[in-house]
């Protein structure tokens, strides 16, 4: 070890500690049982377990930071392969909880390999793109990197865990940074808009809208004698997509998937039924006001009105007990963390480090976007945790590994 501890990015570490600490305080509040006394040695209580997870994380951090930085690049393929095997192994050895075959049950500990697979995939994508012969503009290479991403994604989707699978889309940011054509991003973006618009307004309106836009743009550009076939082609693709989305939504999606979208699109207002989670979450957050009700004083939190409050809905506890100020503080920490990581990624001299950094940012961003968007009622209900805040050992360790590998890589960036 030639480098001192000063080589680590202490700003990132500080934000990490703040998020984990604040997360524990909120898990404590959200999991206080009624009547049961507070007992930090009661390992059934989520706050005790999370405290243990945090302590173990510290050993994990020390381990990650003491391993030679080159190890991660050199063994990324191995790590990726082990990760794939662990995902595939679930279908043989995994245990099924709430319909998802996502856990290995080892004594009292349950491990969720999907959480760790994100870090492994980030390493694998970074390794592939940093290869000397790899050219991301080349279609063949594009297919290969898509395959690296799609393999774990499909395995996760089969559990089924659509939320975690969705996170793999975030590698698009890393690929774009490395030269993937913007059209891929744009295509995805328009697809998403068409997707939501079709569900919200029905395919007839979307087809009408697409044709109208096509005609307007064509008329506007007619002096340049555009090719009418090109316009017709794009319009036809858009209409086809819209129709197929409608078909998939109505015939392939299960009712609970449809319900989740309908709540967010405002089509369902049944607050006692399927909209219950979002509704209760909004009530809890809204009732926090500017300053919040104070730590462990949240009436909604105490009443356990918000389901899964210590896991996916932990942000509703923040909103209720810490108010607008506390929520803003957490938002700011996440934004700062991501911007800091971006800054760090850009200062890397090796492609491997940079791609890995972008992978980390993308994964954190996707969780941030989908989780908080869901909790504050502007995204459909998709069950993925809020990084570092939500209860859960696998999640905490996975994000710790993800983040600290990058911190280690960053500290070693000058050795190239």
């Amino acid at each position, binding site marked *: 070890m030639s480098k001192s501890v000063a080589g680590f990015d202490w700003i990132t570490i500080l934000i990490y500690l703040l998020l984990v600490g604040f997360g524990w305080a909120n898990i404590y509040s959200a999991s206080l049982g009624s009547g049961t006394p507070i007992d930090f040695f009661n390992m059934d209580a989520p706050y005790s377990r999370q405290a243990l997870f945090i302590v173990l994380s510290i050993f994990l951090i020390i381990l990650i930071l003491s391993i030679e930085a080159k190890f991660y690049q050199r063994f990324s393929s191995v790590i990726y392969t082990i990760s794939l095997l662990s995902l595939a192994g679930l279908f043989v050895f995994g245990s099924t909880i709430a319909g998802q075959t996502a856990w290995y049950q080892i004594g009292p500990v349950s491990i969720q390999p999907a959480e760790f697979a994100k870090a492994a995939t980030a390493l694998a994508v970074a390794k592939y793109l940093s290869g000397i012969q790899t050219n991301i503009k080349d279609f063949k290479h594009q297919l290969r990197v898509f395959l690296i991403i799609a393999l774990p994604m499909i395995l996760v989707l089969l559990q089924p865990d659509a939320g975690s699978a969705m996170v793999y889309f975030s590698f698009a940011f890393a690929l774009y940074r490395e030269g993937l054509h913007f059209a891929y991003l744009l295509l995805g973006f328009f697809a998403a808009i068409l997707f939501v618009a079709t569900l919200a307004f029905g395919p007839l309106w979307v087809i009408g809208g697409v044709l109208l836009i096509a005609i307007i743009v064509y008329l506007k550009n007619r002096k340049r004698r555009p090719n009418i076939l090109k316009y017709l082609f794009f319009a036809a693709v858009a209409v086809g997509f819209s129709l197929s989305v409608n078909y998939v939504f109505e015939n392939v999606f299960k009712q609970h998937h449809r319900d989740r979208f309908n709540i967010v699109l405002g089509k369902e207002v049944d607050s006692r039924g399927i909209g219950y989670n979002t509704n209760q979450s*909004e009530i809890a957050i809204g009732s*926090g006001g500017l300053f919040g009700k104070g730590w462990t004083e949240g009436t909604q939190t105490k009443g356990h009105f918000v389901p899964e409050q210590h896991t996916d809905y932990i942000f509703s506890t923040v909103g209720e007990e810490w108010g607008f100020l506390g929520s803003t503080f957490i*938002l700011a920490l996440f934004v700062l963390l991501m911007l800091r990581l*971006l800054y760090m990624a850009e200062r890397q001299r090796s492609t491997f480090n940079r791609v890995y950094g972008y992978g980390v940012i993308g994964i954190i961003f996707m969780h941030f976007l989908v989780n908080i968007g869901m909790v504050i009622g502007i995204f459909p209900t998709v069950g993925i945790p809020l990084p570092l805040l939500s209860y859960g050992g696998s999640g905490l360790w996975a994000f710790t590994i993800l983040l600290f590998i990058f911190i280690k890589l960053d500290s070693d960036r000058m050795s190239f």
Partner: protein
Amino acid sequence: MRKLLLYIIILTTGIIFLARLFYLQIMDDSFTVRSQDNAIEVVYDYPQRGYISDRNGKLMVSNQPSYDVMAIPRNLKPFDTTEFCEILSIEPEELGRRLDKAKIYSPILPSVIIPQLTKSEYAYLQEKMRKYEGFYIQKRSLRDYQVDHSANVLGYITQVNQKKVNDDPYYISGDLIGRSGVESVYEELLRGEKGVKYIQKDRFNRDIGPYKDGIYDTLPTKGKDINITLDAELQAYGEKLMENKRGGIVAIEPESGEILSLVTAPNYDPALLVGRKRSPNYTKLYYDSIANPLYDRGLLAEYPPGSPFKTLTGLIALQEGVIDTEDRFSCNNGYNYGARRPLGCHAHPSPLDLVPGIAHSCNSYFAQVYRKTIEKYPTPQEGMDTWNKHLQSFGLGQFMGNDLSTGRPGKIPDADYYNRIYNYPTYKWYSTATISNAIGQGEVLMTPIQLANMTATIANRGWYYTPHILKAVEGDPIKEEQFTVKNITTVDPKHFDPVVEGMHQVYKSGTARTLQIPGIEIAGKTGTAENFAKIDGKRTQLTDHSIFVAFAPVDNPKIAIAVFVENGYWGSRYAGRIASLMVEKYIKKEITRTDMEDWILSHSLEEEYAKPLSGEPFIINR
């Protein structure tokens, strides 16, 4: 660009989230309200209402437990309506209507569905209660009357109305509140403070303990026990004497202004207005527009006071120095002052001075004395206003500021009043135009309590305490300045002695000589007032009202009383007898004039009251 894209996306997402949080947490208040609604349940603990006892400590009003069936519409689950309605003997349609009404009031706050269960209904329902989710039984305390009189004084309690709930945050729908009498005036003393518990609920609506460890919870405070100034025995006796008659009795202890008795007739048993039969009973009383039992004649009925008013005419003339006690005035069966019809009088010695003037109730004497008073001043206006000012100092023509829930000011005319009705200055008016005031007719109107207070003031020789009904709170006598500071009249004490002597002579040799009570020196004054009613649109004269005021003993007054009996022929016939019996009852605690008592108890005026309603022509005063 490739480096910037993610920056932009991250910052945009942060800003959108911030805006959404700002909307949820700062701008939209509805979430705060909804959070209170589903997480915190407010439970009230109702205290015992204070007891009411009379001046001697006799318990008049205590409490009995009562059970209301309450519902919180949001928590209702489908239930066996048939069984529920059978237990509570209510029509299913009616139940549906009440539940709808409760839902409109509030889906999350409790509403009374069936008030005041009987004991057997309660016992039976309590076992089945768990089957009716969303319903619960609220225990309250209802009044338990230990006496069957004084309903007008005590008042009653009833469910608070919606307006009060909106105006006063203390009350919630279904609470009980004093609606009239002492119950209403001293509501805040009697009700105590209800206790409140804030209970933290979980999402299954289960209790999970007190909210914030109960720092906002309070214990109920019992209502204060009070003594009222009534003498329950005297009151009961007064109501008994007034059976089959209409009118009022007001008795006051002159030295304290305490109301010893406040009778209105007809009246009703206070127990009628308790429990589930309250509503139909109240409706029955309310719509009895002929006997009008809810109308407190002792406080509200404004009658011409008649002859007792002559004492004031005399006192004012003495104070103004227009006569002295030796001045004699002649009476020729009336007083002819130039109008078409002289002011008539009855047979008695003539001429006479003040004391026999009062004793024989000479109209002519007081007409001339009154005229001299008004004409002392250069204009009748000045004279009238001086006269009015003196009468105001006796508490007349105004609400006295007492602690009774209702009252009327009566009427003492002033110069403005006559200027208006005679259209001054186009037309002039003189003292003779108002001469009927001299003998308590004309424009003067007084309520029985004002008449009683006037008598108490004469008994005190020139001062009075504002009459009041509250004597003590939790055993401590009241100290309110309003009731413990003397009101001193504008008439010197020395002028009262001849008037008191005149009133004494009323009993000794005058119009009430047959009403004497052995062993008690009483001063009194009879009154007989003409009165009219509109029958089929025609102003018809009815049998005269019987009026009597008295105080006793003359030298150390313990009771001052005014009795008013509608259409009781003349002063001494009904009112005089009743007043004398009341005085004896209060001072001796027993009745020796049983002849008089028998007469009153065996004479009814119902026939008299039926006359104007018969549709037939009738003869009055016979």
